[in-house]
């Protein structure tokens, strides 16, 4: 459903992603791990089409279509959802109203009728309950004055309401206490389905203890240097990223590489 081939991307003229390949099939959950500055969030923004993130080479094919030719809102309407690492505040706009605007423009794009206020309220309440989000959050302005945990849970609620086909969760686990992490993980697990793929971007193994990925990739300096099953995440946690570099260097040159 998603194929990334030899992707190169720059931000402010600086190359961050340097030849990244990734294949995600329908229903799979992939985890992308890597140290700070390895290009994880850049990858999420490139997939979402954020202005200023320029693709200089390579291609991204999403469900047989050229993703890079689409505008950010078109990508969203086609079923791509990014849970932001730092969700944006929109003062004065009630969360519920924001969800209504989002769901109706996506429905319109797909040729469905718009939901009226009552249908929407039913849908959102039901999802909020399933995702363990208090109703009060729906009346407040989008992300304004939300705690870290509330912001992340709100992202998951939006994901539940918008029912994407490909969800990219950018460090949705960072900054959460144990209980919030568990409730976010439960939300993610509830939304796992054979026709929804997910990419979890994370620093730590701990989210992967709750959400078991099909594949784990290690990103370093803009490319994937190691891929494997969930054991890879555990190994990384124990041995650190330096170990992954060593593995790479060994496989690339056949000799033990020099670590920077």
């Amino acid at each position: 459903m998603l194929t990334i081939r030899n992707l190169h991307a720059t931000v402010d003229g600086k190359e961050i992603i340097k030849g990244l390949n990734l294949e995600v099939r329908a229903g799979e959950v992939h985890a992308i791990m890597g140290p700070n500055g390895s290009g994880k969030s850049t990858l999420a923004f490139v997939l979402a089409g954020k202005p200023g993130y320029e693709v200089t080479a390579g291609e991204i094919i999403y469900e047989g279509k050229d993703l890079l030719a689409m505008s950010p809102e078109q990508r969203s309407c086609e079923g791509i959802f990014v849970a932001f690492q730092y969700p944006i505040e929109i003062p004065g706009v009630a969360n519920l109203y924001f969800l209504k605007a989002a769901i109706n423009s996506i429905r319109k794009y797909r040729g469905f009728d718009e939901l009226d206020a009552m249908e929407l309220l039913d849908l959102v309440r039901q999802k909020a309950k399933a995702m363990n989000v208090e109703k009060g959050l729906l009346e407040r302005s989008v992300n304004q004055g939300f705690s870290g945990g509330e912001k992340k849970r709100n992202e998951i609620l939006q994901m539940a309401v918008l029912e994407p086909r490909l969800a990219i969760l950018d460090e949705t686990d960072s900054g959460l206490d144990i209980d919030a992490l568990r409730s976010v993980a439960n939300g993610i697990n509830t939304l796992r389905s054979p026709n929804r793929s997910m990419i979890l971007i994370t620093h730590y193994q701990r989210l992967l203890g709750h959400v078991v990925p099909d594949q784990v990739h290690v990103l370093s300096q803009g490319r994937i240097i190691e891929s494997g099953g969930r054991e890879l995440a555990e190994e990384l946690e124990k041995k650190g990223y330096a170990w992954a570099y060593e593995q790479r260097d060994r496989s690339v040159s056949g000799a033990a590489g020099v670590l920077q």
Partner: protein
Amino acid sequence: MGDNSVGEFYSVALTNNFQQADTGTKMIHLGKNTRSTVISKGISAGHGKNTYRGLIKIQKNATESRNYSQCDSLLLGDKCSAHTFPYLEIKNHTSKVEHEATTSKIGEDQLFYCAQRGISAEDAVSMIINGFCKDVILKLPMEFAVEAQKLLGVSLEGTVG
């Protein structure tokens, strides 16, 4: 004017292109125990400049009077500006006057966040502006509120994207 009287003032001002607006009100308290509310919303787009200039005057005899003023400014883009000049003249010691002012900006990040949720830039701007003016629009009679919303939409056409 008389004792216990109440005054309210609500306004929305919008400047676009190179327009400049200097708007506000004078609220003069004469009677005892009088109350007033001023809510002023200013939207600046393009190279627009928006200024709120309001006077709250509480005379010596207007004891125990209260005023609440709120001035909110919203900026679209980085070439516009907003200014707030509240003038307060209070001539007794038993009155209470409150003033609050906020400035917010529709930023690229907000528009991108909306786009990622399928909302076009134009819809996102009108959603944020409607949210911003909500306190004032809600005070208007229904027909007028609908007109006002449409007018805001027309006046801002083409400011984004």
